[in-house]
């Protein structure tokens, strides 16, 4: 599981690549939270290169978004491929974390 961090203006951007399964989350979760929560910036997460999402990945996204929300900032995800989108929709994660189709749409959501 790989992670890259950058800033797009005032918005933090995280790119994840690999499998968000038990082992992938174990590798990336601490780094993911540390890249997002302490800074308290509005954040977009690029899932374009995430090939697999299981419940541990959903837990990581919820707990990080919740911690960021307590700092008054928003998080949106974008770029989910069809099999990842099926899990997002099946768990209704998109009821509590905005899901966009593009980076620009995700940035508009968190800065709107």
């Amino acid at each position, binding site marked *: 599981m790989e992670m890259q961090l950058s800033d797009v203006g005032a918005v933090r951007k995280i790119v994840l690549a690999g499998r968000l*399964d038990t082992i992938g989350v174990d590798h990336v979760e601490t780094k993911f939270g540390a890249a997002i929560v302490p800074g308290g910036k509005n954040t977009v997460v690029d899932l374009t290169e995430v090939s697999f999402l*299981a*419940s541990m990945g959903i*837990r990581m996204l919820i707990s990080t*978004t919740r911690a960021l929300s307590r700092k008054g900032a928003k998080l949106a995800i974008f770029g989910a491929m069809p099999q990842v989108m*099926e*899990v997002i929709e099946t*768990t209704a*994660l998109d009821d*509590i974390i905005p899901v966009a189709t593009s980076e620009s749409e995700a940035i508009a959501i968190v800065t709107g």
Partner: protein
Amino acid sequence: MSAEQNLEDMSGLRLSEFVDGKLHLVLNNTMRAVSDGRREIQRHCALRSYDAKVINRLEIIFEELVSNTIRHGFTAHSNQSISVFAADRPGLIALTLEDDGVPFDPLTIPEPEPFTSIETARIGGLGISLVRKLSAGLRYERLTGSDTPQRGFRPCNRIEVLIAA
């Protein structure tokens, strides 16, 4: 190296074979079983014409059930194991898991409350909920010792999941 380290480092896969038209895996009590077993499932799927959506559902269901058993059903560092069978049926794939962990019937686990806000969202029970929602059928049996001579007559959980192919 201590015995404990040795168990942590052990392979997740004790056995992989194809018998009577079924893939049969035996997985060790280590989280490596999830990735080692998944690779065998992927190899099995690559020889068949399942589409990407079906393979993804099979992998998710495998991941959730195996990781749940190792995390909650087994005693840490024990010699317990999970037998996995994958077989084709008309229009379906049957994935069967047998383990000698504590009794666990996934059908009795209540559905998590629907999400209403990020602040109150519960994150427990999502894995079993995913298994139920992505499968076409789910059956549970608690096998008594007389049904499991191959496991030294220890009682076992048997979970059969049907996935639309």
